[in-house]
């Protein structure tokens, strides 16, 4: 009897493994094709076989030397813009969250509620007037114009506040008795303890911005100021028939996402649960 259940369990486990592998393998197939296509010559692209005859590793180098495709530059721009947005978002959100969660002042909760309500506004509604304002201030086609509108996040404030609420209040009182100012309280006591939330917001914010397309598409006019998403768009529409190089560029452009995911997997999963279940 016991032996039989053991065998049954083994078979169940095996079937489960195979089903999982089938699903996961199917999901990964497009990426497999992408990697192999990026190593083909252009003539081999239309063939039935996915495998290149000779691996054309130089395709990856060629992407950087294409005419009209400033791939390296776009890569840098994307990381630069996303880093700035992330820094500003984390900074302003944590300041506001600190005030909303740990300082007592009149009207605090009402303002927070009002603030939360804006989370459901579709960004689209604000896009057109925002763009008109950018024209007025002469910020079109500049990095500040690209960075500033995304630098203030109601979602980030919400996420940080939820986390800061869970830090015991007694710490504040102890620090105040020691004569700490509010700023010191924020910087030396709360922020170090809120590290998990900071990391989560950093990941979300960076990923969101690295992928964002709408605002850069509207704002950036000169080729050398493009970020990767709109750069890839330009690549596709001007020289998209060079599928092998395009696929090499696509493969390279998802690398930062993969790095973030591999190193931050646990944080990310936790963060989604923190933001999602409450949100």
């Amino acid at each position, binding site marked *: 009897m016991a032996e039989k259940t053991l065998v049954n369990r083994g078979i169940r486990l095996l079937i489960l493994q195979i089903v999982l*592998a089938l699903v996961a393998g199917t999901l990964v197939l*497009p990426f497999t094709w992408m990697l192999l296509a990026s190593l083909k010559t252009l003539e081999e692209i239309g063939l039935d076989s996915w495998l290149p005859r000779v691996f054309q590793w130089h395709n990856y180098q060629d992407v950087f030397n294409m005419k009209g495709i400033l791939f390296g530059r776009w890569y840098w721009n994307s990381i630069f813009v996303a880093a700035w947005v992330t820094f500003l978002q984390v900074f302003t959100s944590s300041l506001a969250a600190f005030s909303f969660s740990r300082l007592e002042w009149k009207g605090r909760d009402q303002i927070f509620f009002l603030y939360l309500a804006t989370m459901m506004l579709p960004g689209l509604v604000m896009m057109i007037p925002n763009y008109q304002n950018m024209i007025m201030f002469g910020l079109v086609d500049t990095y500040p114009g690209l960075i500033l509108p995304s630098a203030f996040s109601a979602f980030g404030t919400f996420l940080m506040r939820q986390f800061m609420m869970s830090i015991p209040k007694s710490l504040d009182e102890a620090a105040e008795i020691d004569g700490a100012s509010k700023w010191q309280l924020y910087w030396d006591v709360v922020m170090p303890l809120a590290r998990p939330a900071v990391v989560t917001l950093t990941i979300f914010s960076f990923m969101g911005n690295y992928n964002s397309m709408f605002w850069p598409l509207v704002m950036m006019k000169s080729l050398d100021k493009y970020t990767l998403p709109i750069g890839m768009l330009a690549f596709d529409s001007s020289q998209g028939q060079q599928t092998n190089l395009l696929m090499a560029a696509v493969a390279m452009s998802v690398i930062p996402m993969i790095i973030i995911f591999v190193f931050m997997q646990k944080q990310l999963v936790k963060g989604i649960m923190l933001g999602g279940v409450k949100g």
Partner: protein
Amino acid sequence: MGMKGKDWRNLCIGVAFITPNILGFLAFSAIPLVISFFMAFTDWNLALHNIFRNEPLKFVGFDNFVRLFGERDFLQYLGNTLFLMIGIPFGVAGSLGAALLLNCDFKAGGSRRVWLIVLLTVIMVVAVSILTLFGMGASAMSILIASVFGLVLVAGGIGGQSVYRTLFYFPCFTAGVATFILWKKLYSPENGPINHAIQPVLDVITPWASSLTPGHAALAAQVVLALTLVVTLWGFYRKLRDWRDGEVGTLSLFIGLVLLTLPLLLVWSWSPWRWSHWVFTAVAVLGWLTTFGVLIKGRSYEAVLDRGMADAVILDGLLMVIGFAFIGGANVLADLPAMAGTETGLMAPKWLADYYWAKPALLIMGFWAAIGSNNMLLYLAGLSGIPQELYEAADIDGATPFQRFWNITWPQLANVTFFILVMSIIGGLQGGFEMARTMTDNGGPAGATTTLSYYIYSEGFDTGRLGYASAVSWTLFAMVFVVTMFNWKFGNRYTQE
């Protein structure tokens, strides 16, 4: 008077900390919002108001909104947006399935794990050698595909849940312009791997399909449609029964009907086949008639007006999915002989370049990304929160796996499902811009993939009709607002119950 010096001090400090955020919020959200609201009531148009020609801005009242609902384009794009949201129940089901799979017991400790890996490797080797020996076409290809699956299998055998979770999640977290471009290439009618894989299969089917007479095909299609009818009516019946038992309220009954009739309308606009129209008219009319009939006759039943909202929405979502699968099958069946009878035989679809296939193509890609999405993680969290005692009690009663799922897992996950559905609907209403821009050549073919968000973009930034574009975006906002309020009211209540 009420404020003492200390209160003032606290207020100042508190406000000082939120100042940077609030300033940005005012500058980039609040003020633009107000401007946008006023713009919606003006004739602001870049063709009339620019540096060369500066006519005074006119207030036109509700003209923009009135024009909107008379404009065929707007209605088509609204339809497209809703059509693409059909993917939501599929995606939710997919992510639930993935979460359930990942949640299965993986623990294979010590020596058993080694055996498992050995066994998996053997399976892989055998599979590859079979493929090579009996050669499924290009043998290098089969080896390649088999080794991809084999690698996944072995990696999963070693790493267990975390490996699979990573692989499942991969399509979702890399989603963006990059993967849209990748899929555009995958869908390429001549050079894409998808059609390369489909075409040989279709070539095999062609002789068989062309031997079918149109009469037989139509008959088969009608049988499938009849099945759809049965399933949908069963759904109505179940809903009515629940309502009579007081498990769902009148309001949920209506929500369900709207949800069930909406896809019918959409399919109507999409599929030109006359039989499907008849069946759907019948379903819709019957459904609405029964509902009204029961409502009038059955006043004495007392149920809270809006009870069981989440249950109702989820059940109808399920029925919607089944209905769609049947409808798609019936349409393909009915068209089969005609398509196979042409000179070229059955041809693989042109996907993004074809008016009828463009939206399904986007849905398929969406499904690929949705299986292992954030929703899967939410479901995993939800699954870990279900008390084990419930399952133990069910085991003692001798429940089958299906009963365990239907009576414990599903109801326990109901609020997660509801939350995911609502969030997906809100996202879906605003979605589709990136795909229209990246994959389908600006919302083509013939506007088949232009969603409301892309419409706003093109009106605002290409055509320059800023006032009109603002009106569209406020209409969209109104829809999102309704869904949010719905969630706020019923979502909370459901969790409390």
